[in-house]
């Protein structure tokens, strides 16, 4: 376990600024996407709205898990598990809305 | 056995097995009354047989759990029991209370029993599993307090392992969850809502914690796997039990007059209830594969490994089958529930009780393990009882399916008694497997009457000569 901490430490020390910049960028994108979803809710409706907002939400979810939760750095299995989760929740919702 | 005071567990285990026999006898009578309604009527109406069957089940399981507590707590705490004498007195009080209860069911009409025991002052009688007269209920609380005092004092003065903390903690839970038995409001819907605090709280909550502690103890002792790993698993398993089970109680509230939101909340959370049982199977077999020694008590190992599998089938699978609201709409209050109840009670609780008895009884009789002959009888009993219980479950499920198609989901529904007639063949199959279960029980009991213990050298010689 110690070694993994060292890796993160090395990484952080090598490019202290780039990690921060990347996180800030992610944060700004998340804010932007949230605003976009919010604006869309009054602009469009129906399945167009559903698919766009759902798509935006999945992108946001991917950003949070990959960048914020740090899954970018871990074994691919965990990323796969999370991706499957997001995709299945998304597709179940889409399916339910279309079947209405 | 490392501590003299663990001996008090012995009478508890013997009495538990005796009461178990009684439970099965009443089960056989009840099963016959399904086939011949005038059998033993009016001497023994069905409701009396039924409540004797279920109450004996509860009492013998509690007997076994208490015996297990008196056996495990000193061993884990590495100290003598606080008061072996109190434990022995408690045993006789509990046994007498149990016997008086069953005898009063059999020989006093229920109404008269209620009138004699002050039910009018504080009504508590007339609910499933909680049929006992008021003084008996008070007695149960006193017995529980005595047990709790004894094991808690032992725990305080001794080593505090996680197994012990979980076991003693869940015994406290068991006693606390019995208190709603005294809450019987006049509003029937509220009464049913609160009745589940006892029944669901025990069977789908607290008892699963006891099950986890007992199984953990047996596996630590028999496999030699590191205690830290086993206790960690037990914590995760019982965490999942309560995370799913607390709101999962909602699956009892769908159609009894409780608010409609329970249909969704109960379905969502009770759908998760099989998870702890899956984890239990994964954990047990992982532990078995990592075992560091071959324990000579093969029979106890068989019970211990059978428990998670049968618990998963009965509580997990059969429970899941009837738990979702749209399904339950059609099979609520049918033999489906009885099927689930039989397999779950046997697979989870009867089997863990028999597992701890199988592990502890040879030690209490001064042997590491029973002779191979005795173990063979015991394991034959295991297979007889387990397979018979699966047979009973399938038969009752069959009867449930008949009700589903002819009465509940039918275009032109038939009346209750007509449908019961159509399901007769399944009640015959149930009774057949009931008799075979009883045979298995007798075979199991026979195993206790072999002298001598497991002799390693002897067994090896025999094995080699073959």
């Amino acid at each position, binding site marked *: 376990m110690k070694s993994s901490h060292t890796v993160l430490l090395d990484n952080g020390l090598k490019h202290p600024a780039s990690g921060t910049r990347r996180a800030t960028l992610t944060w700004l994108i998340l804010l932007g996407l949230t605003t976009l979803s919010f604006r869309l809710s009054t602009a469009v409706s129906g399945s167009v709205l559903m698919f766009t907002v759902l798509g935006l939400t999945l992108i946001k979810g991917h950003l949070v898990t990959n960048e914020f939760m740090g899954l970018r750095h871990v074994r691919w299995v965990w990323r796969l598990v999370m991706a499957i989760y997001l995709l299945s929740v998304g597709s179940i919702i889409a399916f339910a809305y279309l079947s209405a | 056995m490392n501590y003299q005071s663990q001996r008090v567990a012995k009478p508890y285990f013997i009495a538990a097995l005796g009461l178990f026999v009684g439970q099965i006898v009443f089960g056989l009578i009840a099963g016959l*009354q399904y086939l011949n*309604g*005038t059998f033993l*009527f*009016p001497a023994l*109406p*069905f*409701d009396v047989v*039924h*409540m004797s069957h279920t109450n004996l089940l509860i009492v013998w399981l509690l007997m076994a759990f208490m015996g297990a507590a008196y056996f495990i707590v000193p061993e884990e705490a590495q100290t003598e029991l606080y008061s072996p004498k109190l434990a022995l007195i408690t045993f006789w009080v509990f046994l007498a209370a149990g016997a008086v209860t069953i005898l009063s069911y059999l020989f006093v009409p*229920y*109404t008269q029993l209620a*009138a004699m025991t002050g*039910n009018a002052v504080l*009504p508590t*009688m*007339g*609910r*499933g599993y909680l049929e006992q007269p008021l003084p008996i209920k008070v007695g149960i609380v006193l017995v529980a307090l005595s047990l709790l005092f004894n094991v808690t004092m032992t725990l305080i003065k001794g080593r505090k392992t996680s197994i012990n903390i979980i076991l003693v903690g869940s015994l406290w839970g068991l006693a606390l969850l019995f208190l709603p038995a005294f809450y019987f409001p*006049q*509003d*029937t*819907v*509220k009464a*049913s*809502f609160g*009745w589940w605090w006892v029944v669901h709280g025990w069977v789908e909550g607290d008892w699963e914690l006891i099950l986890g502690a007992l199984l953990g103890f047996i596996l630590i002792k028999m496999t030699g796997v590191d205690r830290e790993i086993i206790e*960690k698993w037990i*914590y*995760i398993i019982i*965490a999942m039990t*309560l*995370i799913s089970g*607390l*709101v999962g109680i909602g699956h009892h509230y*769908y*159609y*009894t*007059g*409780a*608010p*409609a*939101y*329970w*249909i969704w909340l109960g379905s969502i959370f009770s759908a998760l209830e099989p998870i702890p049982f899956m984890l239990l199977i994964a954990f047990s077999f992982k532990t078995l594969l990592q075992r560091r020694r071959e324990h000579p008590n093969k029979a106890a190992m068989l019970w211990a490994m059978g428990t998670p599998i049968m618990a998963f089938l009965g509580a997990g699978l059969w429970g899941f089958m009837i738990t979702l609201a749209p399904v339950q*709409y059609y099979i*609520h*209050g049918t*033999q489906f*529930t009885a099927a689930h109840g039989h397999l779950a009670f046997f697979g989870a609780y009867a089997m863990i009780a028999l597992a701890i008895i199988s592990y502890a009884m040879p030690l209490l009789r001064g042997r590491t393990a029973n002779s191979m002959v005795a173990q063979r009888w015991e394991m034959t009993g295991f297979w007889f009882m387990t397979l018979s219980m699966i047979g009973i479950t399938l038969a009752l499920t069959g009867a449930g399916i008949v009700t589903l198609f002819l*009465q*509940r*989901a*039918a275009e032109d*529904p*038939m*009346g*209750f*008694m007509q449908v*019961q007639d159509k399901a007769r063949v399944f009640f015959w199959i149930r009774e057949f497997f009931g008799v075979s279960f009883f045979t298995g029980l007798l075979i199991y009991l026979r195993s206790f009457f072999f002298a001598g213990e497991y002799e390693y050298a002897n067994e090896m010689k025999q094995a080699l000569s073959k």
Partner: protein
Amino acid sequence: MQQVFTKAMARNIFLGGAGFFLIIYLLLAYDSFQQIPIRDHAVNLTPSVLRGKYLFDTNDCIGCHTVNGEGAYYAPELGNVYKRRGPEFIKAWIHAQPSGAPGRRQMPNFHFNADQLNDITAYLQWLSNIDTNKWPPNIEG
């Protein structure tokens, strides 16, 4: 990984999870108790209904029957029996037991007088008006 995933952490998850869901359940139970008297029109729990309920409990009716699906499965559902059979049939039926028909399931005679029969029927009527989310699926229960 094994060292990181400690027993203490597992215990905290157990305690945290159990406490968390206990709070959720208690809040829901509180809300349910606010709704139940409306759903089962508790205002109609007249003395006669309550006397009937006491007779119902102290004669262990759910030892054979079910009420809203709870009880034993030996005899018919009673939650909606008032709507299925009506008051007169119920009183006559209880009075005429046991049928004594050979092999048929028997119901004991409870020796109720006329007032007690009225009370029991009043209780069964009250039961039949509980909002059970449209259960049972049909009148046969």
